[in-house]
């Protein structure tokens, strides 16, 4: 399982990279590996407002479909259009080209509820 030290992680297996007032969000390497080959990603529209733990989309693999949960509240300012044609990017580069959305964070204090790489690894191993 690949992890990146500069990211924060949610218990629903999303990662978040804070860049100023914005955050890039995707799913973890563990999540993409558990799902298997991803065939479809449904993302919200730019401008949509998300509350923390709201579902913001769906990721579908040959095995199953899973909801995506917002790790923080905020407004969607960018979505990864490339995933519509190339959902396999999520399998190939979950922390890179497989990113999903960018939000303008509305409440930075919510970041404190997320895990760092070490805590996330522990959670996965104990599950």
């Amino acid at each position, binding site marked *: 399982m690949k992890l990146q030290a500069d990211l924060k992680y949610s218990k629903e297996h999303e990662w978040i990279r804070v860049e100023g007032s914005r955050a890039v969000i995707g799913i973890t390497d563990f999540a993409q590996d558990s799902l298997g*080959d991803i*065939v*479809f990603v449904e993302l919200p529209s730019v401008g949509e407002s998300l509350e923390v733990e709201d579902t913001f989309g769906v990721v*579908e693999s*040959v095995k*199953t*479909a899973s909801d995506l949960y917002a790790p923080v509240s905020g407004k969607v300012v960018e979505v990864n259009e490339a995933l519509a044609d190339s959902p*396999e990017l999520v399998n190939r580069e979950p922390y890179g080209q497989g990113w999903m959305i960018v939000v303008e964070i509305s409440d930075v204090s919510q970041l404190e509820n997320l895990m760092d790489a070490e805590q996330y690894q522990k959670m996965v191993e104990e599950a």
Partner: protein
Amino acid sequence: MTEKLIFELGSPGRQGVTFADNDVPEVSLDQLLPEAYLRERQAPLPEVSELDAVRHFVRLSRLNFGVDVGFYPLGSCTMKYNPKVAEDAAALDGFANLHPYQPEELVQGALQLMYETQQDLAELTGMDAFTLQPAAGAHGEMTGMLTIKAYLESKGETSRNKVIVPDSAHGTNPATAALCGFKVVEVKSDERGNVDIEALKQVIGPDVAALMLTNPSTLGLFEDKIKAIADLVHAAGGLLYYDGANLNAVMGYARPGDMGFDVVHLNLHKTFATPHGGGGPGAGPVGVKEALAPFLPKPVVTKEGEHYQLDENRPQSIGRVKAFNGNFSVVVKAYTYLRALGGRGLKEVSEYAVLNANYLMKRLATHVRIPYQRVCMHEFVASPPQELTEQGVKTLDIAKRLLDYGYHPPTVYFPLIVEEAIMLEPTETESKETLDQFADNFIKVLEEAKENPELVKQAPYTTPVRRLDEVTAARKPVLGWLPE
């Protein structure tokens, strides 16, 4: 491919039939239809002889696998044997050649059959009224949830917008709730595989419209705190919805109505032995308690004196959910099954369904991981041994290898809360010999996977096609055929 498309067979100009000479004056199409409606080129119809056509379809039929061919332990689907007597009944002239526009007085027998099926299903589930219209389980769910919605609206309870579903639920439950305009709230399972009562208390409140529950659950476990769950939901003013997918386990022993459920849907094509798979037709009747009866789809069959009628005068009804009277021939088959078995027979169905599942679970218990160590109901969930998972042999590989032994694989990767899940439902119609042979072969596959993982990872070897490229099929589906 093993078999070409029929369009790719034959030869230009070849015909299977010869028509008699035309004895009326020929009129060209462009004299009959505006140009916009005329094809620019001839439709590419198959050009094959009668023998080519017969061989093509017979070959295709022999590639098929069904419950009449072999053991089909597809968990959650109740692939039991469908007695052929039910086909005979449905093929009777008076049923098969009815027209839905025939006047009521000419179809009293058909209406009586529908009425008695409604009554029988109500008795079996502890409900007060039934509609037979929905065409399948998910359609029944939607009908049931729309009925709940109409009932709540009639009471002015318009702010109830939440539907609770357990994390072990069939995916159709949250999908139905969402489609009917509700917000879906998931509640987790406890360590015994039941609804976590404490977690339920956290989400229950005045905004809850309903809790959707399958009992026994998709883990094949009986929800033994159902009374407490029902009380919680009802105390909050919500309703209880019963997903009847697993009714096969409890017939004659426990009734959803007595457990506190307000609405149920049944799958006639599962529990009541009508053929299914391959897209239907099925039937998903919905039953409700008295208070919700006025909201059921119309018409429903009612009886006045000795006369049966289709009652359209139901002002609070949610309306029709299917043309005419649903999949009538499926109802005829289910009625035949109900009447052939009777109350005692149906009870035995559930006894054997549960016994067979527990027998198979015990036979496999030391070879697989069983996440919930309890007496199971009509099905059980297992995972391959840890060492196989670590070796990279997946449940999918084991399922594929079972094909080589002549079995339809069990359900895999469901429920989602069990890692590498395999879900086995043998049903009541299988003999001990079949179960023993399956268990022996299943254990053999596990041994093969241990000793020669590659053998299992490359399986199947004996099927018409080997591993299909599911990823490309999902990412870039080819859904039609065009001539080159």
